[in-house]
């Protein structure tokens, strides 16, 4: 059977869902999804392997591991993709990302391996004609992909120094589609995949993911609620 589509999860999205106790809802979402929920080895390290060694987050890590064991989340090898190749290419894309903006004649290192590996997996799935989106809650990678010029302006505003951009690098980050846990909880709500029925469920879900790191503004929350 061929895989029609996939959602590639970055650590940040799994973290906001896990910390809000929304993994059962994620499981429900997978049941109606015609495709795979994927994570890379680098993301697995951030959300399972590393927190399993830290008492404070051991429970969340165990729950996420269970999703992997139950094949709700799957690794690239389930599609015959070589993980060593992802790591190699992730290093390459990370190096490009980390030499795109300069301040005080120094490259600003913006991204790490987990984030880069999601981009690489996205490209590999594109080549395999597997429709995919990235689920990314953290702000920097989303900005890199969707509006790198905004990221340059943000850096300049925050660092109070002139930022130079290697605009020729922008092309490596183009063409990805990004969603966040906010859009996932919207689908969960619209498809009645949560047991919560009373009160302002969508509002509560959206604010919950925001408070656990989903980069969504108050205004965007309002706009999503208006769409429902």
């Amino acid at each position, binding site marked *: 059977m061929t895989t029609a589509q996939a959602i590639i999860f970055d*650590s940040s999205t799994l973290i906001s869902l896990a910390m809000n106790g929304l993994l059962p809802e994620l499981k429900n979402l997978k049941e109606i999804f015609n495709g795979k929920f994927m994570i890379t080895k680098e993301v697995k390290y951030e959300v399972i392997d590393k927190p399993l060694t830290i008492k404070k987050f051991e429970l969340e890590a165990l729950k996420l591991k269970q999703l992997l064991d139950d094949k709700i989340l799957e690794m690239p090898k389930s599609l015959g993709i070589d993980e060593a190749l992802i790591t190699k290419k992730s290093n390459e894309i990370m190096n490009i990302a980390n030499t795109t903006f300069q301040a005080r004649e120094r490259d600003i290192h913006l*991204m790490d391996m987990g984030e880069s590996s999601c981009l690489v997996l996205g490209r590999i799935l594109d080549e395999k004609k597997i429709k995919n989106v990235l689920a990314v809650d953290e*702000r920097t990678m989303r*900005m890199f992909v969707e509006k790198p010029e905004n990221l340059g302006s943000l850096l300049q*505003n925050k660092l109070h120094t002139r930022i130079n951009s290697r605009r020729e690098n922008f092309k490596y980050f183009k063409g990805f589609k990004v*969603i966040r846990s906010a859009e996932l909880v919207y689908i969960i709500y619209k498809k009645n995949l949560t047991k919560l029925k009373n009160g302002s469920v969508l509002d509560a879900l959206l604010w919950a993911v925001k408070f656990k*790191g989903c980069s969504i503004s108050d205004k*965007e929350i309002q706009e999503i609620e208006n769409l429902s």
Partner: protein
Amino acid sequence: MQEKENILRILEETKQAIKKSDVMKLKELSNQTVHTASITQDPDNIATAVIVYSLSKIIEKGYYRPLKWEKEIFLNIDNSIRAIKKEDEFKLKKSLGAFRKSLERSSKGLKDYILDVFRKASINKASKIYEHGISMEKTASLLGITMFDLASYSGQTGVSNVPLGKTLDTKTRIKFAQEMFR
């Protein structure tokens, strides 16, 4: 060397601020270090930001014990300053690393509190660096904290309300999600 000069200035001003118990000045000094730390990602700059912020918290909460601690803190500051002036990277790392331990040593009853202050200071500084545009994963790794810590802390700040952070209209992004679940 620019980043070491920054640490030197911060430490010298920190000493004066401690003498005056000037919490606001200490917090300001710590934030100044974040700008440089975001660009250079120099571990010594990051450690300095965490130390200065931790000291501001300890003084703010009234746990500061001048007689017991001042000697230890000033000794560490002076050692760090001397190491920078001698361009001795190894000694600088060693003396910056000794701050927390010497505070713990000289206040046995407050060991857990000191540990907690330093941990929270790391998360606070990480959140500031993330706010400056460095990715969540990169920032967590620089500060030696988990992304879980950083995500839940930064979620409660105004980081996601910055207008430049909006990179796509709401309807289009919802459409991306809906298309996957048709």
